[in-house]
């Protein structure tokens, strides 16, 4: 049995003058939700289309469990994907939309009814999909992705257009799918959507991977080991902490920022020396901050591009 992985190596693709993918490489492993994050235009959707064999890359490879997507006999039983929730024939009912898809994989009506239930579409299945809200379409897209009980799931911006209730549902659903041993790749341009869902993050910009890391590691790296200290005795505090190997900078009136020493150690040191302080706190970066920090370059680059475009 091949592993349920997505393996992308050195993808390059150009759309006219725009380099959409510039050596995109990453690996998605089973058993966890992997967030695929980057600003609009970073190459997330293009990467997914290349993985699905819809777009051809000029260089590089994209493998599902070690095989090219095109070589899969019943691809939907290996990889479930949701690229565009609006990709529907509006006058076809949701059930019939799933039915033709099921038949293309040799699956029957029973499986269609099962995924309708899983996606919570029982009430809407007999209605024309053209009348669905975007949130409903996302659910229908999820149902379609689940049809073949694939071990790999790839969803492009599945939170788009969902109401808060739907977002909560989607998060829990994605986590449970991953817990069953599936590899789940979910793209988003908003880190907040994936907070608490994605255990692993692939952050992309300008067609490349900027960071490929677990979520806790990303947070730690962004936070650093900075500690904020509020004290009236800035001079003596600075002396004590510098003596102990810390690096101290002023952070305004009666406030210091310390690195190289953790908060517990600082408390012990200052208390031992009788230096007064009123507040001490380890600085915690949010995922959003970490993400913005990492993708600033990519966004600036795009802005500069746009400005240059405008001058022409």
């Amino acid at each position, binding site marked *: *049995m091949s*592993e*349920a992985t997505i393996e992308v190596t050195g993808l390059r693709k150009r759309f006219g003058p725009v380099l959409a993918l510039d050596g995109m490489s990453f690996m998605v492993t*089973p*058993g966890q939700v992997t967030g695929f994050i980057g600003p609009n235009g970073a190459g997330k959707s293009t990467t997914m*289309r290349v993985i*699905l*064999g*819809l*777009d*051809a890359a000029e260089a590089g490879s994209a493998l599902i469990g070690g095989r090219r*997507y*095109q070589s*899969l*006999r*019943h*691809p*939907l*039983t290996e*990889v479930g*994907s949701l*690229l*565009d929730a*609006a*990709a*529907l*024939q*509006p*006058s*076809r*009912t949701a059930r*019939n*939309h799933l*039915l*033709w*898809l099921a*038949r*293309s*994989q*040799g*699956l*029957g009506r*029973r*499986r269609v009814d099962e995924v309708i239930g899983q996606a919570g579409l029982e009430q809407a299945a007999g209605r024309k999909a053209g009348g669905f809200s975007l949130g409903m379409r996302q659910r229908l897209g999820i149902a*379609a992705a689940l049809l073949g*009980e694939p*071990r790999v799931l790839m969803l492009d911006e599945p939170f788009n257009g969902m109401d808060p209730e739907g977002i909560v549902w989607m998060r829990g659903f994605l986590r449970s799918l991953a817990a*069953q*041993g*599936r590899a789940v790749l979910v793209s988003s341009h908003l880190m907040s959507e994936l907070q608490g869902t994605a255990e692993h993050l692939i952050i992309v910009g300008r067609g490349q991977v900027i960071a490929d890391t677990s979520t806790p590691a990303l947070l730690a790296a962004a936070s650093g080991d900075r500690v904020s200290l509020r004290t009236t005795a800035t001079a003596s505090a600075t002396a004590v902490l510098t003596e102990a190997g810390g690096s101290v900078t002023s952070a305004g009136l009666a406030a210091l920022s310390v690195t190289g020493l953790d908060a517990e150690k600082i408390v012990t040191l200052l208390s031992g020396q009788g230096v007064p302080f009123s507040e001490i706190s380890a600085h915690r970066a949010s995922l959003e901050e970490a993400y913005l920090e990492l993708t600033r370059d990519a966004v600036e680059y795009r802005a500069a591009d746009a400005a240059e475009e405008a001058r022409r």
Partner: protein
Amino acid sequence: MSAHVITESRPGQRNGRDGFRQLLSAEWTKLATVRGWVIGIVLAPFLIVGIALLNHSTCGGITTPGGPATTAAGCPAPPSGPGGEAVSDSFYFVRQPLGGDGSITVRMTSLTAGPGPAGLSPWSKAGIIITASTRPGSAYAAMMVTGGHGVRMQYDYTGDIAGPARGASPASPRWLRLTRSGDTITGATSADGVRWTTVGTTRLAGLPATVQAGMFATAPASSQTRAQTVSGASSAGAAALAAASFDHVSLAGPRPAGAWAGDAVGGASPDAGFRQAGGTITVTGTGDIGPYVPGASGSPGSTIGSTLLGAVLALIAAAVVATMFMTSEYRRGLIRLTFAASPDRGRVLAAKVVVVGAVTFIAGLAGAIVAVQLGERLLRSNGNFILPASTLSNLRVVAGTAALLAVASVLAVALGSILRRSAGAVTVVVALITLPYLLALTALRGGAADWLLRLTPAAAFAIQQTTPQYPQVSAAYTVSNGYFPLAPWAGFAVLCGYTAVALALAVFLIRRRDA
């Protein structure tokens, strides 16, 4: 690896050898689950039948549906020739019986238009003839001089062999001879009665022992005079006439002693007849001996193709559905889901083509069968006659109309895949297939119409043609009379050629382009 959670094979999932069947099933489901498309397909046969029922053309003074029935019989059907085909067989015949092998030889000294105001038409004919009987539609062979096409041997209505180009005149008379041996007739001609040239030989199957041999003259009406005849307002003297003079007449072979007798075969005409003065016999006649050609000089008569005029509307309906079946997927981005489910894009296209082709064929077949049945009944009840055609031809017309719809729809799928845009593809499909046909049917005449129906996919409408064109009959060989410049299968092959090229391009592009 949590292999225990996700199973490798699932019940109810067939294995991949019949993957194409699954693809067909998926595409069929797509087509059948969009109401507008189903309506379009179902509409197609109703359009064919509906147009057939709108055909209220009448003939010879007749009943209108719902109106008071009249006693008029409508137009009489033309006689049938030895092959069962409709024929024209009316001429003035000066004859004697011939009871075995023998020959007839004459010297023809003139061919003129006779006393009437009409000139000599190119296919006015006079000469000698051996015929099974004087009943119209009998087997025959004839040697003749024509108004504009020289000496010819013609037989059994459709046979036509050209002889010397020079005709007959008092200054240079033309000798003609027919020799019978069993049921084989040989035609020969000579300029001087000494050196003879054989023009042709034919076998008239089932020729009785005693045949009629003699001289004839006939002249087809111009379209103007024939139209007047048809409308029942024929004016005397307007009929085309041919008058021919013969001398050195000799009939050799077993025969009872007797004189030349005159017969107006296929109906009398006031100006027709013969005169015998000394050794010279002058014969004047009108009519034609040859295949019956509807549309020739306004000859009435319908073909089964004329009950299928609605096919062009059905074709538009089918082609629009077929185009949308492809382009709507591009418009919505649905094609990505289709290709994600079935990465072999060539097979996806093949499945669409098979589904669309089969569905439109069945719709077209159902429409054509019903339209022909009801259309023929309606035409007959309005006093028209339907020209006989072989069972095979009738089958070809009905099945061919269905195939026309199917192949045109396949072309529409291919063009939809190439162009990806609904409006553009629908426009191209309709313009390519139906516009040339409709133009040829209505506005265009002659060369332009012919070339459109040779070069464009509309050539395939020739599949509905049952009446062949004959060079020896002057007629308005137009689409509205049921004639096409190409033979039925040749015309159909033009459409198939376009479709094959479009499909090849579609497969090439669909594999090459990003979805």
